[in-house]
């Protein structure tokens, strides 16, 4: 069983996102094992990009901070390699297709596998363009995580049938960022996936509070939280480990509550 599958085995997963190198590599490196210890079942590490078109302001600013501190793809590979010696937590990279393509797609996926990255999420590679990266992922033995959105509707079947690792279900229209309310019928979206595939479904975009996490987890196999964590990192900088881990504990507890209440 892959590390990603284990994150969903007999439980609902809490997935934590951080931008790699925000505010610097040392802080990210300290944060990841601590978040795992605090209950994060899978860690999504953003490779910062100059022009993150799917991100709201919070993660855009994290990308700027990370790039300004000198973060590069190679430095993040080195960081993951060091982390892999200490932790078994599943780790995936989230980045845009240009940093992957420019690095050399085969070289990138091979380095992912060597360093202990389990999968990649590439928000600007839709189903129709997946061959840009899918062959290289398969050859390297890492998972290409697919995404569905509230607009996907009849596209869900074809995407779900091909999905590997877990399916990233985008909760709302628009870009990443905290939302006071999620109006999409997440239950219906997940049911449509489950009709054609048993791939685990994790809900992301806009989830910030334990109440939202519990609600979203009750309809799915896990929740992904990014901007709310990145906000804490922006606020506390190098001293973010404790406040972030306290937050992760609280969110994980809310997800655990949902395990008993699954619809």
């Amino acid at each position: 069983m892959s590390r990603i599958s284990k994150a969903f085995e007999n439980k609902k997963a809490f997935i934590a996102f951080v931008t790699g190198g925000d505010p610097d590599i040392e802080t990210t490196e300290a944060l990841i094992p601590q978040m795992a210890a605090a209950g994060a079942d899978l860690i999504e590490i953003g490779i910062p990009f100059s022009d993150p078109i799917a991100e709201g302001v919070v993660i855009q600013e994290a990308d700027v901070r990370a790039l300004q501190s000198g973060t590069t793809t190679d430095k993040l590979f080195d960081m993951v390699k060091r982390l892999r010696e200490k932790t078994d937590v599943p780790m995936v990279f989230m980045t845009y297709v240009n940093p992957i393509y420019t690095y050399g797609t085969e070289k990138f996926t091979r380095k992912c596998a060597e360093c202990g990255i389990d999968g990649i999420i590439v928000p600007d590679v839709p189903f129709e363009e997946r061959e840009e990266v899918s062959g290289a992922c398969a050859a390297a033995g890492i998972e290409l995580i697919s995404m569905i959105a509230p607009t996907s509707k009849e596209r869900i079947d074809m995407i779900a049938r091909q999905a590997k690792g877990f399916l990233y279900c985008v909760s709302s229209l628009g870009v990443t960022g905290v939302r006071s309310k999620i109006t999409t019928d997440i239950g219906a979206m997940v049911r449509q996936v489950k009709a054609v595939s048993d791939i685990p479904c994790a809900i992301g975009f806009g989830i910030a509070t334990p109440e939202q996490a519990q609600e979203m987890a009750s309809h799915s196999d896990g929740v992904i939280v990014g901007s709310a964590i990145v906000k804490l990192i922006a606020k506390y900088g190098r001293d973010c480990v404790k406040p972030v881990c306290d937050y992760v504990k609280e969110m994980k507890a809310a997800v655990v509550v949902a395990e008993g209440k699954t619809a």
Partner: protein
Amino acid sequence: MEGSKGRYGLYGGQYIPETLMPAVQELEEAYEKYKNDAEFQRELKELMEKYAGRPSLLYYAEKMTKDLGGAKVYLKREDLNHTGSHKINNVLGQVLLAKKMGKTRVIAETGAGQHGVATATAAALMGMECEIFMGKEDTDRQALNCYRMELLGAKVHPVTSGTMTLKDAVNETMREWTSRMDDTLYVLGSVMGPHPFPMIVRDFQKVIGQEIKEQLMAAEGKLPDAVIACVGGGSNAMGAFYEFIPDTSVRLIGCEAAGLGVDNPKNAATIANGSVGIFHGMKSLFCQDEYGQIAPVYSISAGLDYPGIGPEHANLAETGRAQYVPITDDEAVEAFEYLSRMEGIIPAIESAHAIAYAKKLAPSMGKDQIIVVNISGRGDKDVAAIARYRGVEIFD
């Protein structure tokens, strides 16, 4: 690649978030339906002729020709179109299409403000809500165009992320479209972005080259030897070139913004300095670093200040069918002043890049040869900036 659409050789495609895929597919379906629809084409033709003022003139620049002492120089006067640039051709097509699709709101990016003004104009005409995203740097450089858009009823959003120029305006318009697609069409301003935009924008702009061919045949009875146009994303150049692609005797020359020079980091010459990448929905050439971070580019011209180029241009460059040359700020400003004094035509600083190359090329050609330069827009918007460049402070 199986399933991948809108390819020009290696380039093109649809690299956008899943959320937007149904929106671009809806646009593609609508375009395929209406492009051969007689009623749509009749309405568009009427708008082009009775509203935009097409056909635009093909003007023989006799004084310039004599001054340069070589090839005959003709100017395609897209600056005379309503709103003062070629941008109107595309927006009349796209906004009419949006209306047929049942949309009530259009959004667009703009660099120099020409596409923003054109979109706001078409939206006013067709009764659509309109919001324009423009880099903060450019709202400062082009304050007049900003006010013009507001006058036309559009809401202008200054974009403060990234380099605060055209690339960031595109980012922000894409983000906005991701949040609202039901009633909204993104009216993209150049032959770039995800399929079907490069194709649609080219189709609405190809009238430029069709008219050049027809008008030059009437005036000279032959094809031009060279067609020259400036290139940012590349819509006026693609519009001027497209008709001539099969006519291999016609040299097609795109002029890129070299800013302070191709060897200086402050430039926007994508073909000269860029490498293959995937950004803004397309695989094409981009100015970027070794890790694929998009480079902050620079040009005096807000309309050419873009780190990429349309995928069809990337392919024309690769196959050698078109040639792309860098023009510096200094050369463009000098050409801006030259055309003003020589022919009494103040070109857009973007179009001045094409004039600058025509000045280099014409003397090396025979007197029986013909160059057509596309004057993509008029220069009123640039007067204050050029004055500043020359050390004169005036209020615009």
